[in-house]
């Protein structure tokens, strides 16, 4: 790289020596080429500014020459005027162009220095890493489906009376059906009352019917308890119950509601269902419901194949239950059904072991849980 200073005395004297026209013109040519070279060689904006001042500043070389125009003859001026103006414009443009190039180069250099390793792994954001438990998600899914059919959500306490858990639901005292419930009891009180942990969500049927005028359409999700523990039974589990009470809803409506529910919940276009007569003290007639599934391949696929899978119990609300709630069973009728929330979650999402639901193992929650913003809706899809 050439390295000289614009203030070099040789530079000044060598190019300003002659004084005749030709000499002047020749001087200008030299000045132009020197300036252009200097501009091209300018490494940064400061150097460029120095050149500008040297050439075009108040006392710059070109400016000084311009001042001499006034002393020239008109003829001389006619020659030198345009020449000097042309030089001034040329140098101004050259400086401007060089400025752009330098700015571009500076930007490139800055960008190059700013490069980072974009392959570096991120730290997951909280909204990405948190998970909703499948039980909560499935309750939201149920809510979305049944809200669309005009149902609202009812709830009741876990600590219940014998009356609401059994008697009002038409479980006779001492009947074997009571024993099948493996009830958790609290200690007997002084007045002889013995509270219990509800064995099903059905007491809420009674609470609802006693507190709300028909028509009634509710679903009742919640915790339920039975003293039983193995791979498929835990002492605490979740049930959801449905109840419809009005003056005309019959078993045909129940069938339709459950079919629509199963299609919507399992997200299949069609599904075969089978209703089998069964027995529950609080419904008459009572049925159990099987849905079509495929067990080949070791995994249960809902809505395909030739096998049956029991998923819920249902029936027309027993006249005694309607009567126990202060309604006339010859006027009011309706139906109810109940199923395990954990169980349908397992069926839909393929968890093998019920006990893991209540163990709070983060690996399990991360694997089977749902993203916080995946709120199930019918229009947006229940699940991804």
């Amino acid at each position: 790289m050439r390295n000289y200073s614009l203030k070099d005395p040789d530079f000044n004297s060598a190019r300003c020596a002659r004084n005749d026209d030709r000499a002047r013109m020749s001087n200008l040519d030299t000045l132009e080429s020197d300036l252009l070279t200097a501009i091209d060689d300018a490494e940064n904006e400061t150097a460029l500014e120095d050149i500008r001042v040297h050439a075009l500043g108040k006392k710059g070389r070109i400016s000084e020459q311009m001042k001499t125009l006034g002393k020239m003859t008109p003829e001389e001026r006619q020659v030198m005027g345009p020449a000097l103006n042309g030089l001034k414009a040329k140098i101004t443009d050259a400086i401007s162009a060089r400025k752009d190039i330098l700015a571009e180069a500076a930007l490139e250099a800055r960008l190059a220095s700013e490069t980072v390793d974009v392959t570096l792994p991120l730290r997951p954001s909280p909204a990405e890493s948190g998970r909703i438990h499948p039980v909560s998600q499935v309750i939201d899914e149920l809510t979305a489906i049944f809200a669309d059919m005009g149902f609202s959500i009812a709830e009741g306490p876990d600590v219940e009376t014998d009356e609401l858990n059994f008697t009002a639901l038409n479980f006779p005292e001492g009947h074997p059906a009571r024993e099948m419930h493996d009830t958790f009891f609290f200690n007997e009180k002084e007045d002889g009352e013995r509270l219990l942990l509800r064995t099903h969500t059905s007491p809420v049927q009674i609470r609802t019917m006693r507190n709300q005028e028909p028509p009634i359409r509710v679903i009742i999700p919640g915790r339920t308890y039975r003293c039983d523990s193995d791979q498929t039974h835990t002492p605490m589990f979740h049930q959801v119950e449905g109840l419809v009470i009005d003056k005309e809803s019959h078993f045909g409506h129940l069938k339709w509601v459950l079919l629509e529910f199963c299609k919507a919940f399992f997200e299949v276009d069609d599904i075969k269902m089978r209703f089998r007569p069964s027995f529950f003290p609080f419904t008459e007639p009572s049925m159990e419901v099987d849905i079509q599934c495929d067990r080949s391949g070791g995994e249960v696929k809902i809505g395909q194949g030739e096998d049956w899978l029991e998923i819920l119990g249902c029936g027309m609300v027993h006249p005694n239950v309607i009567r126990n709630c202060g309604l006339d069973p010859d006027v009011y009728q309706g139906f109810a059904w109940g199923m395990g929330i954990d169980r349908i979650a397992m069926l839909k999402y393929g968890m093998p072991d019920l006990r893991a639901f209540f163990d709070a193992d983060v690996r399990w929650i991360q694997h089977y849980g749902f993203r916080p913003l995946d709120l199930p809706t019918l229009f947006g899809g229940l699940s991804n």
Partner: protein
Amino acid sequence: MKFTLSWLKEHLETDASLEEIVERLTMIGLEVEEVTNRADRLKPFKIARVLEAEQHPNADRLRVLKVDTGEGDPVQIVCGAPNARAGLVGVLGKPGDYIPGLDVTLSVGKIRDVESFGMMCSERELELSDEHDGIIDLAEDAPVGMSFAEWAGLDEPVIEIGLTPNRPDCTGVYGIARDLAAAGLGKLKERSHEQIRGSYPCPVDVTLDFGDTKPMCKAFGLRLVKGVKNGPSPKWLQDRLKAIGLRPINTLVDITNYITFDQGRPLHVFDADKVHGNLVVRRGKTGETIEGLNGKSYEIDETVCAIADDNGVESLGGILGGEPSGCTEETVNVLIESALWDEDDIAATGRKLGVNTDARYRFERGVDPDYMMPGLEYATRMVLDLCGGEASEPIQAGEVPENSNIIDFPYSEIRRLSGVEVSLAEANLTLKSLGFWISGSGDTVKVAAPSWRPDIEGKADLVEEIVRIIGLDRVPLTPLPRTGTVGQKVLTTSQIRRNKARRALAARGFNEAVTWSFIAKPQAELFGGGSAALELANPISHEMSDMRPSLLPGLLMAAQRNADRGFGDVALFEVGQVFQDDTPEGQKMVAAGVRRGTAKLQGASRHWSGASADVDVFDAKADAEAALAAIGAPVEKLQVYRDAPDTFHPGRSGCLKLGPKNTLAVFGEIHPRTLAALDLEGPLVAFEIHLDALPQPKSKGGRSKGALNASHLMPVRRDFAFLVGKDVSAEAILRAARGAEKNLIAEITLFDIYQGQGVPDGQKSVAIDVLLQPRQKTLTDEEIDAVAKKIIANVEKSTGGTLRG
């Protein structure tokens, strides 16, 4: 309830295949749980005869057998059974055969240097019974070379149905046949039992004596058969009992068991020579005991129904016979009992004594009262046929109750409840084929249920019977009409809050847990619970004994479990119920979370972008505030108090309140003593939000948010630093500053706290940045200075601090 196909066909004339029968049983409510055929596993086993049995040269207890298999040369088998002898006809397993009771496949083996080409099997080895005292010893004329399963009548499907408790009539094969016949799967072979005329009066009398108390026995039939020859029952009877898993005992006992399963009618037989005097059916007395036929002894009292003679209690009526008066092979005179017991008393006694018998199972569900005496006749017939002897006249104590339930049945009820159209004729035929009595004609008839159907109460039951038999698939799918409203309220405020809290916390990186509602008593006590009212009388384990007063013990333990698995940086939350007392109102909804290790909001553990520090009280406070904001709490109005429960670190915890008495949330680091008591390792921080404590949102006034008042005037910022005592709370300073000019002060940021050089001991420097937002006109310097002076004066006055110069 188990039965074999041939047993069913004894009562049902049908051409239907096994598959059709199984399908129909399930579809009429007698759900088939399993169909098994023992012959499937026993196919390879053949009958073989032992020709020779020599002592094993090298073992005292072993013998070397030569066995005739019915084909080819005899095979050599080493056998250790004590009953192995020349001439025995038994069952042979050959190399390659799978022995189900041993779970092994046979191969040729050498036992103490002698080769053995198979084994002679015991009943246990073939899973026929628990018998393992010796090898199977068949009748001498059993055909050598024939399939053992076929010869023994094992090649037959055994059907097991899961019987619902309302169907006592189907605890007997006959009742099952009746249901199938009604459903069109064949014709019921109607039972009829001749009345056997006794040749002498029954010498033993029976009385029902319940004094003034509620009778536990409704009626009691009894008769003596003398001169019987008891012994093993015939093969067909033994085969049937064995097929359904019962152990044959002797003919008299086997007959009672047979009728129990054939007709659903339990009976009892006494050895008449061991009965002293007459029988009295009465309440037990405290101090009385009985040795049951099951080998166990029971102490009884007045809640238990006893059949007693002069010697004392001989039988627990309807549940269990007594050993001393039971029938043995030596019995020559037998008393046959057919009685009718109170269902509730049977259930209560069975529960109390913990006895489950086939008799209890039937009596507590309700045995056909009208079949009490016919059942006695049937048993007598079988005794006479199989054991000989001479029957007495039967006697009966008490009265069989009459069925007085006549149901007015409008046929329209079928359509009303089920939605299905059934013709009058079809409805009638269905009910009649099930044994119902129908009277009258027209739209409403009178119907009485047969005596064997105690479950039939009213109209709905009749609808069920009809729909069940004609088939539930005939009920038409009927869309449920839409309700009149759109946008009706689906969720309660509490439910909405829970959902919002849940998703807000998950969005802060928490994983949602669902932990048990019951916890160990010490944990419950530690968190303010453990009262007697909320303690389970029959917990499944001592770790699940008390209803939880707080979600924190469950979550803290869960966090520790994860840490023990190697995942120490966890954030867990739960939204659920806690129990303050045993009333419905005492059940409260709570959202709670714990963070452990370095599980902070921005991420856990080490990372190239910066390692996470340990969780601290401010993480918990931030979570609590975020969740409260999500459920609509007025976060700007919350006040921070220091009186968190003592499970928290006293200096690093707090409460968020709306007024001094309404605590919405608690937060903080867990107290070291709590960690120690629960055997936890920190760092652990937690919060708990009382969702029900937040006042209900206003129902009126609409959802308008009001106009935005965004001033066009430039706000002004001013910094202040105060020297205050080190125990002065930030809240006190901020409140004092905020109060200086409420209309002008839009925001205050506390941006620095400093203790150390330049600040006197016992003091700290607190710096705040106050944003003044003029509304009307730009503030003059004088106005700004006036506000600043007011701020300084307020802070100094309420905190005792000074402006730092």
